[in-house]
């Protein structure tokens, strides 16, 4: 297929629960792709992880066809799973909600590395560790 890419859209969405409402509608509207088909297929493909936020990259082509891939969940989701919490702290400096270990941080950084614009594991660890602290997690 002689595809020419018109643009790529990167979205964090709740798996199995995409709707035409923002951010999906206004983000994809400029590419004039078949929105219903994206929503239907995305929800079907991610229904097993229903409720978990995932990252998806939608590639839109100049003939208005499209494809999409589902990447690893965002670092914050992996941290919540590692710390066994549903939500971060509303006051991260004062109320610590759980602990994560340095080893868990490194493991999450390794998982995220292919999706980040870096091959530098130390930079990825810094990002994940900072995200953990912003959620009220103690890094031990």
């Amino acid at each position, binding site marked *: 297929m002689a595809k020419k890419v018109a643009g790529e859209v990167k*979205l964090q969405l709740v798996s199995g629960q995409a709707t035409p409402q923002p951010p999906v*509608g206004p983000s994809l*509207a400029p590419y004039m792709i078949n929105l219903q088909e994206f929503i239907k297929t995305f929800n079907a493909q991610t229904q097993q992880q229903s409720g978990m936020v995932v990252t998806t990259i939608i590639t839109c082509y100049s*003939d208005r066809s499209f494809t999409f891939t589902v990447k690893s969940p965002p670092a914050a989701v992996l941290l919540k799973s590692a710390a066994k919490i549903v939500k971060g702290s509303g006051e991260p400096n004062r109320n610590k909600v759980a602990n994560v270990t340095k080893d868990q941080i490194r493991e999450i950084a390794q998982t995220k590395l292919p999706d980040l614009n870096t091959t530098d594991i130390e930079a990825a660890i810094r990002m994940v560790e900072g995200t953990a602290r912003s959620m009220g997690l103690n890094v031990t």
Partner: protein
Amino acid sequence: MHWAQITVTTTLEASEAVANFLIEMDACGVEHKDISDTSTSLIAYYPLDDRVNTRLNKLRNFLAKLPSWGLQTHPTKIDLKRIESEEWTETWKTDIQPQRIGNNFLIVPTWHKISTDDTTVQIRIDPGMAFGTGYHPTTRLSLEMLEQTIKPNCQIADIGTGSGILAIAAVKLGAKHVDAIEIDETAIPVAENNFSTNSVEGCISLFQGDGIKSLTGKYDIIVGNILTKVVIPIIPYCPSRLKPDGHLIFSGILETELNDVKEVLIENGLECDEVTRQVEDDIMWIALRAKLAKP
């Protein structure tokens, strides 16, 4: 309903923390738009109501604390924009109109009610998760060349069928049978659905496979709307799959690649007998037709 679009431009390092915060403030999702190797924009939407200012204040406080958690945030800015709600599932259809291609084809989205004369060959197809909607020059060039080349009751192979548009066109122009090959598994159900919508499924065999190597028959026409890097490796397999008076039709070739393709055709006992061109966005696309060279 109106929406408050909040855009936070920040460093890539802080982006995961900020995206999570936007979602925990009840956004249904976040769009990431990378600006450079180190900075990105995060876009989230909230109902435009009296909670917007509270959310903005919370966000400003959160961003101010990011450095204390070891995240570099400079430069960071917040933009707020009002967005009108739209029927987003319908607006994408607004400028998709039936389009005439070649002498006979009319490509029509399924939601359009249209009546045409008997000579028009209607193909019902919606843009979706497979290439080949009729909105790209390479598809138009392939359809035109197929129309000029096809003869009733011929056997056709469609390599990289995508949406199946060329296979459908071939059957509607009188082909007896089409073997349609597609490597991309997501395109297979799209093609199947399009074959059914156009009532041609009985004349087409659809395979998931890797190009012409998957085929064993002999064909009057082998057509492929595929890129040059895919065309070149399959050319050596084509002479043994073509009937003596058969034709190859390849589209998806750039003007700058034409001579390379012609050289490979000659090396494999084939000769180019027609070339057509269409420009889009300053890119010159080529379709070519070839046949077995006379000894």
